[in-house]
């Protein structure tokens, strides 16, 4: 008799009654910490509503405080859907073969061709000269610096930048056998390594001066910063925190940072565990998410000039596009190295 009344209550922050995750009329969606904030609640609920409508089942949101838990929840059949990074998806797929991608967010063109975002390595504008050799940004300068990543399961916040760095140093004699583990802890290449636990957190580490270099992605901070100088998503571009930026940037309005390295990354998928959701519902969800209605839902794809905050922003033709597992092979190769 304990634990009744879970189904009709949908309080975001309280997670959900996973007791019913195995029962047939509930679909659990796991969200990464990045998307677990109260400010994105409306957006999450919109997606939930679409899925509820498509499948006729109740959707429950599960909010997490770390990446690993989110991934494992999907792997261990304790959730049907998860919005996760590309690397997270690949790890999940390794752990459980019945996990498949449902959709990814397209690029501005509305197709998969530009379904990418960018992983940045950013440094303080005033300290940029410390990272330049002969006037050019060089990764050689990273030695003994204080580094901030997002989390070691983050695609653009760890896996991509760390493999970029390892590739770069592979030719150097001192650091030729650098491993991703070495980059997780201070002492080998970096003097200290911090984890911000979110892209915002990593960025704040840099702006606060707790780190010299920080890795984070463009999309995750686009609500808070604007280009001050140079061309978007290119090395040397300077970004400034906008006036009236929401937390956590509210204390650092007007501060600037400069990009020293920019790497494109595949967009994050919504993934499903087929064992849990079933073939039939999988199709329904995929269809519903990829529909024009969803693409035009301003709660999910928030117009760029809107005040509202949402999971995705819309500048042109952005929408959800169905994908196959193969599409992630480039990232898979990166993390296999």
């Amino acid at each position, binding site marked *: *008799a*304990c*634990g*009744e*009344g*879970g189904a009709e*209550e949908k309080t975001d922050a*309280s997670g*959900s*009654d*996973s*007791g019913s995750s195995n029962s047939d009329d509930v679909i659990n969606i796991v969200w990464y910490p990045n998307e677990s904030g109260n400010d994105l609640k409306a957006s999450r609920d919109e997606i939930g509503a679409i899925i509820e409508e498509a499948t006729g089942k109740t959707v429950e949101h599960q909010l997490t405080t*770390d*990446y*690993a838990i989110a*991934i*494992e929840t999907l792997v*261990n059949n304790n959730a049907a859907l998860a919005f996760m990074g590309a690397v997270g998806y690949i*790890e999940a797929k390794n*752990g459980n073969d019945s996990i498949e991608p449902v959709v990814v967010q397209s690029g501005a063109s509305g197709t998969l061709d530009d379904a990418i975002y960018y992983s940045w390595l950013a440094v303080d504008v005033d300290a940029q000269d410390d990272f330049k050799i002969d006037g050019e940004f060089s990764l050689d300068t990273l030695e003994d610096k204080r580094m901030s990543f997002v*989390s*070691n*399961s983050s695609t653009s916040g760890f896996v991509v930048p760390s493999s970029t760095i390892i590739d770069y140093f592979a030719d150097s004699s001192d650091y030729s056998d650098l491993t*991703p*583990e070495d980059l*997780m*802890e201070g002492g080998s290449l970096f003097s*200290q390594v*911090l*984890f911000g636990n979110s892209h915002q957190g990593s960025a704040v580490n840099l702006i606060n001066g*707790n780190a010299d270099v920080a890795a984070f992605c463009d999309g995750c901070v686009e609500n808070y910063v604007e280009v001050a100088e140079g061309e978007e998503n290119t090395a040397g571009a300077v970004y400034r925190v906008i006036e009236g930026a929401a937390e956590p940037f509210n204390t650092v309005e007007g501060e600037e940072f400069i990009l020293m390295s920019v790497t494109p990354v595949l967009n994050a998928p919504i993934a499903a565990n087929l064992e849990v959701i079933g073939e039939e519902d999988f199709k329904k969800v995929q269809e519903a998410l990829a529909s024009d209605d969803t693409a035009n839902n301003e709660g999910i794809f928030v117009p760029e000039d809107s005040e509202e905050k949402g999971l995705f922003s819309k500048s042109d033709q952005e929408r959800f596009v169905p994908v196959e597992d193969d599409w992630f092979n480039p990232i898979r190769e990166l993390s296999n190295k």
Partner: protein
Amino acid sequence: MSEKKFRQKKWQTTLFFTVIIVVTFISSSITKFNFIHSMTTFPSAFTWIFSNLMITEESFKKLPTILTKLNETIFMAIAASTTAAALSLFLGVMGSKTTKVNNVFSVIARVIASFSRNIPIVAWALILLISFGQNSLTGFLALFIGSVGFLTRAFIESIDEADQSSVEALTATGATYFQIISKAVIPQSLPQIISWTLFMIETNIRSATLVGILTGTGIGYSFDLYYKSMDYNTVALITFTIVITVILIELMSNYIRKVII
């Protein structure tokens, strides 16, 4: 006690258990806790443990780094406990109703203790992380503050329990306040004080994992790191080292406790 009171006691017992049961039901409905489901989680949890949490040879290679971190944690726990004990001893003497100098100090000491004890260590860790950044000192401070709260309460009780008669006797010889504290009160409470400090070290090593996760220091940081990279074999190794350490320290402090009391 009349028969009426006797019945009243029985009635109170019944009421007590009813309250417990009602509270349990309310709690499970608020937290959406399903008792049956929680029982069924055990098999899957233990299957998971046995299929994932295995120490492999490869994870063994990481032992040196792990031990360094463990070392940091142990020192952090000890330093936090002893420095906290020193401060708490002072606060305890101030706060105890038998040795207090005056009510103002006594209230201040108790308020400090209450504040540091009742704000959970998690909260302290997160608060300190914001200001101090990610280093040993943050972890140390988080443990320190929690320890001060707990130890002050424990010390106040130990000092209250100390036999007051010798305090009276020393006053009668013309001894000063500090002489009385150091000659009559401390010697009596010292075994208790040491015993609580040892207990605090044990507790702090346990909480160091959590505090480490939150503040990115010591063994908790390694734990978090490997856990997040889903390298469960190394997680198992780390856990194993923690378990060994905690048990060793527990054995050691049990021994000391037995000898000194």
